[in-house]
Structure formats: C-alpha cells, structure tokens
C-alpha cells in the first residue's frame, strides 16, 4: 500500500489510533470540520486534509508523529492558519497537525531577557506576558493578534518593526524540534550561541519541512521608553519612494518605515479603522523612531522630519500622544482587512527589491495594473524594500482570476529584474513554487532539497511545498561540467579555464 492511500483506506482506524493519543474530541474526521482547515490566509488555494488532529502537549505531538511514521502517512504542521502562501494546507492523503493547543508560555527570564514558549502561543500574548518586566517580543507581523510563534518561526515572519530590530530569525535562540521519525532534538543553546553549525538559523524559515517546532526559545527586548511617530504625505509615489532611500542613507535607523499608496489610504479611510490619513495624498510614509533616550529620539525624529520635507513631503505630522500614535498604526495594521472590503477577493502579494529601486518598481507596478485593468493597492515595509502589491478582484467574473495571476507574475518579474526576490516574509508554500526557478538555478534548488532530506529523508513533512522538485538538478553522483566530455574531465577545458582563472 502506498503512503498516498493510507489515510483514505484506514480513515477510521487511523482516527481511532490518533484519538487514543490525544482524546477522540481532538481528532476531526467529518468533512464539514475538515473543510474549516482547507485554506490559510490566502483565499486562492483549497486543500481538504484527510484527518485533523489537535495534540495537547509535546508528548502527544511526539506520539502522533511516531504513529504516522510507522504508518508512512505524511503530515502537515499548522499554527493559526494565517499564512499567506498556502503552507499549512494538507491533502486528503495527509494528516494536519494543528498546534494551537500547545499554547503555554513556559518561562520568562527577565534577567537574561529570554522567553520559552510552546509553538501555539499567539504572537501578541508573549509581549503582553513580558510587559510587566518592561520587555516585549519584537517581531510584529500585522497578523500578530492571531498568528502563532510556531508559524512565525516556520515562515521567518517579519513585521513593521523588523527594520530596526530584525525578523524572527534574529530573535530565535533555540528550538526543540520533533523530526519526521518522531525523534526529538534540541537545536541551539540556552544563550543562543549555535552548538555546531547554525541549525536553528537553518530551521527558521523552513516552512514546516524540517519537522515540528515544539519549544521555542526567544530573545525579549526592553520596551522602548521614547517613541516618535511621523506621518509624511506625498503628492507622487515616486517622491515617496525617493524619500525612503534618503532616510535609509541618513544613518538613522527608524524602528519602522511603512508606505501606503492612495488606493490603500482610501480603503482604510472608508473603513472603521479610519486613521485620518490625507485622502488626496499619492502616498504616505509612516515613520517611527524609538529608543531608550527621550532627547536622542526627539533629535533624530527632527532630523528625519527634515529629510522627509527636503525630499518632497507636503507635510509631516508628528503624533501628539500615544492615542494618536495608536490610531495611525491601527490604520496600517488593519489595512489588509480594509482592502478586503474593496472587492470580493484579494490577492496579497509579497516581494522584495533593493530600496533604491522602489520609485521605478512602484511605477512599473502601476503600469501593470493599468495594462490589466486591475486595482492594485500598495501597503508595505518600505524601509526594507518589502513590497505588498495587493490585487482586488471578483473571482466570479469569468477570466478575471487568470488575468490576476498573469499580472502577479509580471509584478514578480519586475521585482526580480530589479535585483529583488519573490518573497520577503510570506514564504513559498504552494503559492510561489512556480517562481522559484526564476531566482534559483537547478543546483541551488537541489541543494535545498538535499538539506531537507537530511531532516526528513522520506519527504513526509509538509510534502510538495517550497522546493519545486522537478526543477532540481540531480544531486548525488559524479556530475560532468559544461564543456567537458564525461570520462575526460580535462579535455578541451584548458583555454576556457585559463579564462576563468584570470
């Protein structure tokens, strides 16, 4: 019997065996229940899992994984399911392991500024728990009220404040991981120094392909004592993009530097999250400075405000108090939700370009939108060059979805041509498999796959994601070099090689 049919044929007995481990009410087999797990945050992919299981502890995860290993059944880890690349989806032949019940904060060590959490802890909960110690967990994806730290680790999630403080990878010190065969390994060390090669760094961003993270040790930071939030508005997208480069080159690193274009501004202002953004602006920049010294942050904010004005800002508003600051941020953090109201469907895109190319790339995206007759709204982490061009459309209109896909592909091509990449924080999952060969050659893809095989030799954990297997070159065995005949490694190579050596 192949693994592929395992779940379907044994549906009943598998569910019963899982139920013995986690309790029958934490196993979902009925179709209506399974369908609720058929999507993640992206509306465009739908895969109904064969069985859904919700273990309640690390030991239960281990027992579940060992059972599945013995049966040869593939499985997919899942956190809150807010992912935007179709990563947490399982097919009918696989078991979806939902980790939201592993939601304990196991330790907060205020002296060493470290926390240890289970993977199902929701991102904001950790900062709330650390607040009494004057600490917080810095990576702040806009989905932070829902997404889990396990999901953040798997995606190497970013957020507005990652410009200054770094993405998830910077903050993860150690991991306990359950491998595909049910073996538990501890990666890293308590202080964060790699123990051997940096396997923690390698695991972060592996999108659930290397195993299930069951314990996560993260760094906490002191809550900044001084904050300045600026809103700069621009009459042209290009000028706003140029202002971003000017801020970056100034040497002052803002905590956050976000951009919203007019379409996004209007969507926010039309929603309950209206933040008072100027509707006539072609773009606004939301710039936050923070630190521990009031006078330094104030002085740096003045410098930045000056740079923004010198680079074409019509006005620069400084939030007068915490309340106004929160309102400005609320608009940004809820922008996706607000855009959701523009139309029935929304494709959330994610790409990164060198920051200096933002003005050109934004214009190119505008041209693509016009050419395809689509509404594209931009709301993104400008300071990192991390774009989110979002396409609003109605999937019921015949042919429209195909046009959206084509436009998305063209946007990706523009970003790649500018020296960028196809995702800065949402990951590859299923959604971007087709773009991987555009940025990695067959050797690079094969190397990734080979690394995955070290962790998961049978490719049973989250199969079919991240690496397009058909595009990988053969990895093991002797390989011939271009321009050489097999069996005569040096024939005819001399001239070409001396060239290379020069």
């Amino acid at each position, binding site marked *: 019997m192949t693994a592929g049919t395992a779940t379907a044929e044994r549906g009943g007995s598998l569910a019963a065996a899982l139920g013995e481990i986690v309790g029958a009410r934490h196993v979902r087999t009925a179709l209506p229940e399974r369908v609720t797990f058929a999507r993640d945050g992206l509306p465009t992919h739908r895969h109904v899992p064969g069985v859904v299981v919700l273990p309640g502890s690390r030991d239960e995860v281990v027992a579940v994984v060992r059972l599945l290993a013995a049966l040869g059944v593939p499985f997919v880890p899942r956190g809150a399911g807010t992912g935007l690349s179709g990563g947490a989806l399982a097919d009918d032949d696989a078991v979806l392991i939902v980790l939201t019940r592993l939601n304990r904060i196991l330790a907060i060590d205020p002296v060493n500024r470290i926390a240890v959490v289970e993977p199902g802890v929701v991102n904001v909960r950790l900062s709330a728990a650390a607040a009494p110690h004057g600490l917080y967990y810095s990576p702040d994806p806009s989905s932070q009220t829902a997404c889990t730290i396990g999901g953040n680790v798997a995606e190497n999630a970013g957020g507005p404040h990652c410009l200054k403080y770094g993405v998830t990878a910077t903050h993860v010190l150690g991991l306990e991981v359950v491998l595909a065969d049910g073996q538990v390994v501890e990666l890293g060390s308590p202080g964060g120094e790699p123990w051997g*090669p940096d396997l923690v760094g390698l695991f972060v961003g592996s999108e659930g392909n290397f195993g299930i993270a069951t314990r996560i040790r993260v760094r906490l930071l002191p809550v900044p004592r001084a904050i300045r939030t600026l809103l700069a508005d621009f009459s042209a997208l290009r000028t706003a993009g140029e202002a971003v480069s000017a801020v*970056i080159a100034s040497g002052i690193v803002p905590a956050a530097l976000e951009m919203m274009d007019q379409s996004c501004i209007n969507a926010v202002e039309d929603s309950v999250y209206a933040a008072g953004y100027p509707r006539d602006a072609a773009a606004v920049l939301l710039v936050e400075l923070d630190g521990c010294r009031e006078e*330094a942050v104030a002085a740096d904010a003045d410098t930045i405000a000056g740079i923004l004005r010198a680079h074409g800002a019509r006005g620069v508003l400084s939030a007068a108090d915490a309340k106004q600051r929160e309102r400005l941020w609320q608009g940004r953090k809820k922008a996706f939700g607000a855009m959701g109201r523009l139309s029935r469907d929304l494709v959330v895109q994610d790409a990164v370009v060198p920051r200096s190319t933002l003005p050109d790339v934004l214009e190119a995206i505008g041209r693509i939108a016009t050419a395809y007759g689509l509404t594209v709204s931009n709301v993104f982490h400008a300071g990192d060059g991390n774009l989110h061009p979002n396409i609003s459309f109605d999937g019921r209109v015949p042919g429209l979805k195909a046009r959206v896909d084509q436009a998305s592909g063209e946007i990706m091509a523009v970003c790649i041509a500018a020296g960028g990449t196809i995702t800065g924080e949402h990951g590859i999952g299923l959604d971007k498999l087709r773009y991987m060969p555009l940025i990695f050659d067959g050797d690079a893809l094969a190397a990734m796959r080979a690394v995955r095989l070290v962790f998961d030799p049978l490719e049973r954990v989250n199969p079919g994601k991240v690496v397009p297997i058909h595009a990988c070159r053969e990895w093991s065995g002797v390989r011939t070099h271009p321009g050489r005949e097999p069996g005569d*490694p040096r024939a005819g190579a001399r001239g070409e*090689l001396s060239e290379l050596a020069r």
Partner: protein
Amino acid sequence: MSWVDRVRALLGDDAVDVAATPDGVPRVAPGSPDAVALLLGTAREEGWRVRVEGAGTWLPVDAPADLALTTRRLDKVPAIEPQDLSATAEAGIACDLLRQQLADRGTWLALDPPGLAGRTLGSVVATATAGPLRHGFGPVRDHLLGVTFVTGDGRLVQSGGRVMKNVAGYDLTKLAAGGFGAFGVIVLVHLRLRALPRADQTLVLEGSREDLAQVAEDIAAAAVQPAAHELMSPALARRERWLLAVRFAGSAALVSAEEGALRAATGGRFTALRADEAHALWMRAAESFATRPVTFRVGALPDSSDELMDLLQHQVGDEWISASPGIGAIRWGGETTVDRLRRLRRTLAGLEVPLTLERAPWPVRAAVGHFGAYREGVGPLVAGLRRTFDPGEAFVVAVEGTE
C-alpha cells in the same frame, strides 16, 4: 601528469604557486567562482583532499592536504550601494581593504572580528568570528544577505540574495556562516551595511574583574545600549588591570545621550578615549588573538558570564579573554592542551554551554574539533549535512574531534 600539472592545465600556470606553503602543499589561487567550482569538481573526481585558505593569517595553514585552495585572488567588490546599504564582495577580499572601500562610500560593515586586519571576508563568514560589536549589531549571520559557495563536488550554490528580507527557500546562508568551510568554499558574499556612524565614542574603566562585572550589570540595568560592551583581560588590553570598554556608534544625538546615561549609571567613572586611542585599543584587542596559538569561544546566558570566567580561569587560565557580558559571549586565547580543551568542553556541555574551537594548530584541531559534545540527535544531522555538501570528503576540516 602530476597533480600540479593537472591543475595548471585546468586553471592556467599562474593559478598555482607551489613554493608558497610552508609544508610544501601546492597552493592554487583560482581567479573566479567558476574556477573554484571547476577545481573542486576535478578534486572530487581525482579524490584530492583540499584545504581552504583565505589570507592564511587566522588559522595556521597546516592541515594535511593534497592541495591548498586560497581565495586570495577572489578579491573583487562588484557592488557597493550606499542608497541600499548593501554590498557584494568576493570572499577573498581582505577585511581592511573592504572597510576602506566601504568608508569611501559612506558605509560601514559593523563587524570587528579578531585577527589581523588583512583577514579575508570569507574566513570571517566561514568561522563566524564576530568581535565586540556583536553586542550591539549581532553575530556574523545578521550581516549577511546571501552567499554563494562551492560544494566539495564543485557545485556553485547560491543562497539568499542582495535584498534586506528574503524567505525564498531554505536559508542555506546560515550553514555557510560558522560552518568552518565544511559545507563549501564561500566565493561571494552579499552584505548588509550601515551608514558610517556620524559619531563613534569609546569610554573605558579599569578595575578588578569583580568590580567591573558589577559595573557591567549596572549598565545593563540602566538600559544603556552600546555598540560594544567588552570586558578585556589586562594582557589583552595592555593595562595593569581588567578593562571595561564601552563603545557608542550612531547619530550624534544618540551617542551623546547614551554617553550621558552611561555616566549617570556609573557615577561618572568612565574615561572617554580620543579617536586614535579608541582605534588602537580595538585593533590591539582584535590582533592579540592572532598571536595566541589557540582561541575558542563560548556562548552562555548573560547572567552566567562571571561564573564561566571563573571556570575558564580555573581550567585554562584567564590571561587572554575578551567577553561581552551583556550577551554572554566569551572569547578565550592562549596555550593549552588537547586534554584540557576536551575536559573543558565536557564541563561546559554539562552547563549547556557550547565551546567552539576557533583556531589551533592542526593536531589540536583534528583531535578536539571545532565543534563537539553535541546534544542528542544533532550529530547525525551535522554528519548528514556534511555528506550532502562534501560527499567525497574533499575538504580537510576538523568539524568534530576524534574523541
């Protein structure tokens, strides 16, 4: 045909410099990433054992090999982008030359690795040796946007890219950083830069180690945020007593505010250094390590730094130590034996503290290994990764010891 002749046939006469190595191992200096790939592809087919060398200033060039591959001709800097704060450099560029080129464009790589100024960038990445600036700017990996490396069977593998954020595919860059060359020869590095700091101020305080450890705690408690916060042994600092050196770098407003906070937290006991004095201090501290036969690093919880330094003092002496107590990182230099290193590593492992051997003569490296005393289940993963990237065991690297 001898090996040397074969390599000459492959890469041209001027790529081989037979006389250069002290132990008579032929040294090859490929001039491009593709040439490195061709050489290693051939090495794989011929079964040659290859040792990788940068400038040869940090690790002794003494490992037994058929061929030494030096990156020193890979010394181009194809791109410096001040507007993006990124750069692309070949792995063989000397750190001091790179620093100068970056400064000319108003940019800065916030890394101050131990060793001589002429160390290659590739060696810093391969060994993940960060210096005092790790306190404020993080470990080596935080400065990398991507790398290209050549595997033991001659494949050119590109990972990451040159943009600030990137989650396309698995992050193989993390393996290259601190892999000690076991997974490939790094040929090209994409770097995250910072703007050259407008202000850069170092302040120092001399005292007993106990006294300074207390001061370091006071500084941390006051949430002072220095770029470097380093406790140095007297020999290293060339002072009578231990030295606590605190460095601030950034905008003028930031540096003056932080300096004020430092003074307030410590009762004004620190002395500000002039720029030339500060430069000399940090240089000396970095270079001193290259004069000791053995260096290693340990990483622990910040609040155990003091206890660990006691342990080091007891087991291997504390003449040459540089520690960032705020992040629990300690670098040790000196003379010691295989047995002592092994015992120390075991003791530390019991405390859940890894010891990474950074440099030592080959017999010591081979016996002790850069890494060891892994936690359960980690060894097979590392071995699997090695097989993946160096299937013919072409690279002579003492990843683990022989114990």
